[in-house]
């Protein structure tokens, strides 16, 4: 019984390490076969429609609501210390530094990532990828790489839209609804939010998340067993793994970026 448990654990560990190695090789293969994705940019644009444009609604609505909640909660806390004027700063900094990239990354993983995995997994299960290979067309270059770059390009745009809508939501609640002074709201925000330190770092974060989520989604689809359970399992794994990876990467990146600040 115990022996079997240990054996299981060992097997799973080896399997995990093997998959990580395979995923790394897959990632390098994508980068090496990216020429097509740029030479025929139409392919990438097509995929940007599916990953970016179709994620817009959920990103915009979530961003607006998160910003509105931040406005309400932030005001509640700040007014106890008489610093309602810092509301703009609070809303903008939390969104631009953390919530924008992270929440957009999580939503992107569940909206676009799962779709990518299911699509690639089904293409593999129905032998479309094999068929392409038999036509002397590399599926990594033709199918995988355009999706990868579409994700990498879409993700920072989505995160920026999330943050922008969030700031707007905070403005709606803070200024329009509660009545914080409009001039103070914006000027305090501008004084505290730095382009390089805050906004640029947020963009870098979202690009990293885009790379991570898209790679995981593509890999899970490419590696999925060609059965119905295989594809559904891979889709679930995409959402779970990429969400965890986004959060873990966010911690690491934050530690690097904002360490020198305080």
């Amino acid at each position, binding site marked *: 019984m115990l022996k079997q448990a240990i054996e299981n654990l060992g097997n799973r560990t080896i399997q995990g390490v093997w998959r990580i190695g395979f995923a790394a090789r897959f990632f390098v293969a994508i980068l090496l076969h990216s020429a097509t994705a740029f030479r025929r940019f139409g392919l990438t644009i097509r995929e*940007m*429609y599916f990953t970016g444009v179709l994620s817009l609604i959920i990103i915009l609505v979530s961003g607006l609501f998160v910003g509105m909640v931040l406005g309400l909660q932030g005001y509640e806390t700040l007014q106890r210390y008489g610093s309602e004027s810092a509301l703009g700063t609070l809303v903008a900094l939390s969104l631009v530094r953390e919530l924008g990239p992270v929440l957009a990354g999580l939503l992107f993983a569940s909206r676009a990532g799962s779709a990518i995995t299911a699509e690639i997994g089904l293409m593999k299960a129905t032998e479309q990828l094999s068929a392409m290979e038999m036509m002397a067309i590399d599926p990594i270059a033709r199918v995988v790489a355009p999706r990868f770059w579409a994700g990498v390009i879409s993700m920072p*745009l989505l995160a920026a839209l999330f*943050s922008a809508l969030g700031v707007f939501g905070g403005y709606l609640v803070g200024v329009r609804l509660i009545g914080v002074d409009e001039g103070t709201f914006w000027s305090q925000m501008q004084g505290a939010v730095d*382009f390089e330190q805050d*906004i640029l770092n947020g*963009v870098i974060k979202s690009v990293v998340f885009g790379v991570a989520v898209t790679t995981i989604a593509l890999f899970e689809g490419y590696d999925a067993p060609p059965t119905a359970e295989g594809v559904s399992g891979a889709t679930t794994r995409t959402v779970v793994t990429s969400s965890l990876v986004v959060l873990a990467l966010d911690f690491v990146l934050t530690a690097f970026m904002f360490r020198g*600040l305080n």
Partner: protein
Amino acid sequence: MNRTVLDLWVGLFVIAGVGALLFLALKVGSMSTVNSTDSYEVVADFQNIGGLKPRAPVKSAGVVVGRVADIRFDNGKYEAVVTLRLDKRYAFPKDTSASIMTSGLLGEQYVGLEPGGDSVMLKNKDRILITQDAVVLENLIGQFLYGKAQEGKAQEGVPK
């Protein structure tokens, strides 16, 4: 999905995304971080910088003219060496004085520049010679109490 309709949507998406980035850059944030290309650095020594932090604003007459780029400790003189990165558009005389101020009673600390009357201007890597340290609240209260006590003693002494 028709090819052109698809392109149109992606185009709208990209425009909206770039617009959001611009909104963040211009309206939410400030481009006030002076880049190294259009700025110059001067150094000032302080015996006590209080709670001054990197990136704190440098103001003259209340206007932000630069940022604190770096703070380090000089182990030879036992003083704080503060590097200020100033916007190239603003030039200050060589005998300008720097002092560490606090906005409001408990607000953030910043470096204030008080221009002197010299005709020679500060250049890159120059040193500001006249500095005034941060006011440490504990010292201030201590001095105040000490002063009150002295005053009391003096008043006691007068009638005698």
